[in-house]
């Protein structure tokens, strides 16, 4: 298992090499990348804040749970912090298993859980302002009164 929160560029080749085992028949790689628009507004770049030690701990617990649930051969979860330009990778999830079905399911589950639980925050920066985003899928928003929950 390879878990990392870092301001450095995320390397998919490194993650693939880290999770592939001789027993693996499939490797699934997910990259979350910075998009140039959100809710109809042009995004210039993103800035990610994190609680790095807890983020790594939480990502490790989630990866461990995925290993058990989906009978994976290995997994890697990386999250980048700091300023990211359009097209750069913010989140990387790589999983391997004996067969492809488990890797698709595990990758999907892990990305969803990372977005719910891992203490990382993104700020959108536009040409004329900026705003910290509250994740609609986050645990905190799940607990909020219905009137506060957005999309």
């Amino acid at each position, binding site marked *: 298992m390879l878990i990392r929160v870092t301001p450095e560029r995320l390397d998919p080749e490194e993650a693939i090499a880290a999770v592939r085992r001789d027993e693996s028949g499939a490797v699934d790689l997910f990259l*979350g990348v910075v998009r140039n628009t959100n809710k109809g507004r042009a995004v210039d770049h993103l800035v990610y804040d994190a609680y790095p030690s807890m983020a790594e701990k939480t990502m490790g617990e989630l990866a461990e749970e995925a290993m058990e649930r989906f009978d994976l051969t290995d997994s890697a979860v990386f999250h980048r912090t700091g300023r990211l330009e359009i097209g750069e990778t913010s989140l990387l999830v790589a999983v391997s298993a004996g067969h492809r079905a488990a890797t698709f399911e595990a990758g999907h589950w892990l990305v969803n859980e*990372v*977005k719910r639980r891992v*203490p*990382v*925050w993104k700020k959108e920066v536009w040409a004329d302002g900026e705003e*910290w985003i509250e*994740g609609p899928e986050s645990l*905190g928003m799940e*607990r909020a009164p219905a009137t506060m929950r957005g999309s």
Partner: protein
Amino acid sequence: MAITVLFFASLADAVGARELSLAHVAGDTVASVRDRLVAAHPQISEFTETLLYAVDEEYAEEDAPVPAGATLALIPPVSGG
């Protein structure tokens, strides 16, 4: 021993700090520390509806104890990925 309190993202901007130290009071819980923080920094009250808490890097309920020397993180809705 004191308690270390951590703020992130929008909440760090609102408080104007990422970290501060608070005196520990016997019997402290997440809620009792949060209430002292809100009294000192009223702007935190705008966040409490959706705030989660972590004691020593584990999510914790409001009635969870906060021992002397612990780190309490105030966690606005996360938006990683």
